[in-house]
């Protein structure tokens, strides 16, 4: 084996190690931004039935910007997954909305199916669309 071939192997394993570290580090990064977490807990934002986040009440410019940013990212994820599953963006987003509402914690806001209004999640199961799994 030549010296340059050995170097290439070392370089390749180094790159592989870096990629490996990235994969390990990724889940640690995937937690809610503190501003988002605080807004959820305070009931300033909530889950809508269509799979997107909504501002509860009139909100403010900062909240609306944060919600828009999250929704753009959600939409990108929905679009990619919907395509992979042969579904429409709306179908996938709606399904995700069902689950996102299920996963709200008591005190967090969501749009109730029967009233169409922002509702605080209680300890009991949320009022969801009957089609939800």
């Amino acid at each position, binding site marked *: 084996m030549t010296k340059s071939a050995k170097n290439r192997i070392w370089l390749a394993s180094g790159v592989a190690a870096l990629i490996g570290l990235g994969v390990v580090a990724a889940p640690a*990064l*995937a937690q809610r931004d503190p501003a988002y977490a605080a807004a959820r807990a305070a009931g300033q934002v909530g889950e809508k039935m269509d799979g997107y986040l909504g501002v509860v009440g009139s909100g403010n410019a900062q909240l609306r910007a944060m919600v828009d940013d*999250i929704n753009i990212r*959600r939409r990108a994820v929905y679009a990619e*997954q919907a395509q992979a599953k042969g579904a429409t963006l709306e179908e996938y987003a709606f*399904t*995700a909305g069902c689950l996102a509402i299920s*996963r709200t914690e008591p005190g967090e806001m969501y749009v109730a199916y029967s009233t169409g209004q922002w509702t605080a999640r209680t300890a009991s199961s949320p009022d969801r669309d009957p089609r939800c799994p």
Partner: protein
Amino acid sequence: MTNVKLTTPALRAHNLPQTGSDMGTKAGRAIKMGVTLLGPALLAGCIKLEAPTEPIVIELNINITQEVIYRLAEDAGNTLDENSDIF
């Protein structure tokens, strides 16, 4: 207009677009007549709209079947887990 007259005395003011209305011309008269006829026609076509007292809820997701939702549920659950920063 005075300037125009001074620099190009041969041109009459009403021939210049910037002098305003050309409703005196043949084309102008035709436009006038059209507007006169169109006015009542537009009014007759008006539909009176009243502001609803109840908020309008448009159900955009009405065509999504439960079957599709159930098919996507598992994958959507994984998507929420893998993107927990935005959910």
